[in-house]
């Protein structure tokens, strides 16, 4: 399949899925921002109202972390099951198997565009101002997207080969939620530990980068960001090649497992 046809098809699949999804609900597209807001609301009730253990700035801190994390976790969870869920199509057409997770991640990108817009507006309304550091949002988002695609391809391949990976991915997302500083600030740890968390957990680095840019006005460590981008970019390329070579095998696994 020519590359241009591949990307057009991916885009149409994503748009159609969004349209189908919106038509199922009374509130339609409003759910794009309502769902993540409800997530933030739930955590706010638990951590601020019930436990009362956080500072005044906790809501913007939580919003930026949680909304960025949800993009990552939801995209990967859904994309991981995409080949298996699309086995009706897998058995009928010979298309690259990457198309299924890619369309799912692309769908998430459209949703996230609305969520980010809402998040930026909230941050501004809350009294934070636009600084020169905001220019760094673009590379951070690009690296985040590359990270999501690479992980989504790994997840989709793994679940296709053994369904057992599906619950493990869900568990992995829960683990990442607690270890990536969604509810707590990596920078509150002692410096050595903070450095270790940021070095070992790329997602913690990404969430911290969003917060540093939007809430503190400091650009991220670009060297670190580029190394994450290069690492996941390489993983993405490897996965595309692997899935291309294993296309028939993945189809057989999707159809017969």
């Amino acid at each position: 399949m020519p590359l241009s046809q591949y990307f057009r098809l991916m885009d149409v699949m994503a748009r159609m899925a969004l349209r189908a999804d919106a038509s199922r609900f009374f509130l339609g597209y409003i759910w794009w921002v309502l769902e993540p807001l409800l997530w933030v609301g739930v955590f706010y009730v638990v951590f601020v109202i019930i436990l009362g253990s956080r500072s005044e700035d906790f809501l913007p801190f939580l919003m930026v972390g949680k909304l960025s994390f949800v993009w990552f976790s939801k995209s990967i969870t859904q994309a991981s099951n995409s080949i298996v869920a699309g086995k009706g199509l897998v058995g009928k057409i010979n298309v690259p198997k990457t198309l299924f997770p890619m369309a799912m991640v692309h769908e998430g990108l459209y949703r996230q565009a609305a969520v980010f817009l809402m998040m930026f507006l909230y941050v501004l309304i809350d009294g934070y101002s636009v600084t020169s550091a905001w220019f760094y949002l673009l590379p951070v988002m690009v690296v985040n997207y590359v990270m999501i695609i690479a992980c989504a391809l790994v997840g989709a391949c793994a679940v296709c080969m053994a369904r057992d990976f599906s619950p493990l991915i869900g568990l992995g997302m829960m683990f990442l939620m607690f270890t990536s500083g969604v509810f707590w600030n990596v920078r509150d740890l002692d410096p050595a530990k903070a450095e270790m968390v940021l070095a070992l957990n790329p997602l913690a680095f990404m969430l911290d980068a969003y917060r540093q840019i939007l809430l503190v006005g400091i650009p991220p460590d670009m060297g670190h960001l580029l190394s994450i981008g290069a690492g996941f970019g390489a993983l993405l390329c490897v996965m595309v090649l692997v899935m291309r070579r294993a296309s028939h095998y993945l189809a057989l696994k999707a159809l017969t497992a």
Partner: protein
Amino acid sequence: MSNEARKVMLELDSVSLSYHTGKKTFDAGKHRVLNNVSLTLREGEALGVIGRNGVGKTTTLRLMAGILAPTSGRVKVASGKSASLLTLGLGFKPDLSGRDNALLAAMLQGSSRKQAEAFLDDIAEFSELGESFELPVKNYSAGMRSRLAFTAALMTHVDILLIDEILSVGDAQFRTKALNAMQNRITGEQTVVFVSHMTDQVKALCDRVIWLEHGEVVAEGPADEVVDAYAEQVTK
């Protein structure tokens, strides 16, 4: 031109396909779907594939379309030729309109967005859906859904058309229309492999037929002969 003189479009050479079923389940083990199947398809030929459920007919088409690869043996498609499986309900989303679903189905079958959009009016007309074409497919009756699916599938233009059981659609009037449309496609230079349980249609559309049983070819020859032998076996 004699059949042998025509160009070979597709060839299955001692093709077998097997896979392992899930471990630690009651049905664990190796499942052999096709065993040493060989056949040749020539340009402009209409080849029928018949057999009971589960004998490997759809798998044969999937191998020809390049969706699956054989465990052993070779599938050879003539250089520069494309083979595509024509099948009903390609990824239909019930919440989307007939128009959206038809667009998606056409693109999944290899059309560009422009080509797919150009097909939409023809699809709306042939499927006889009228204003329902703009409504969500979840509101369609089974017959309307089949008509949309058949028409969207019919728009595919490939060198080798692999047809999997798609003529049993809609009411009697639409079935006749569908059969005629398919006959028009086949009587041209279109190369076709046609899988169906409807032996009358196989006889009407195909020059040659292979009969599969337990993943193996048990008979191959002129459509009338093979279909009659199969019908006799089935009714025994």
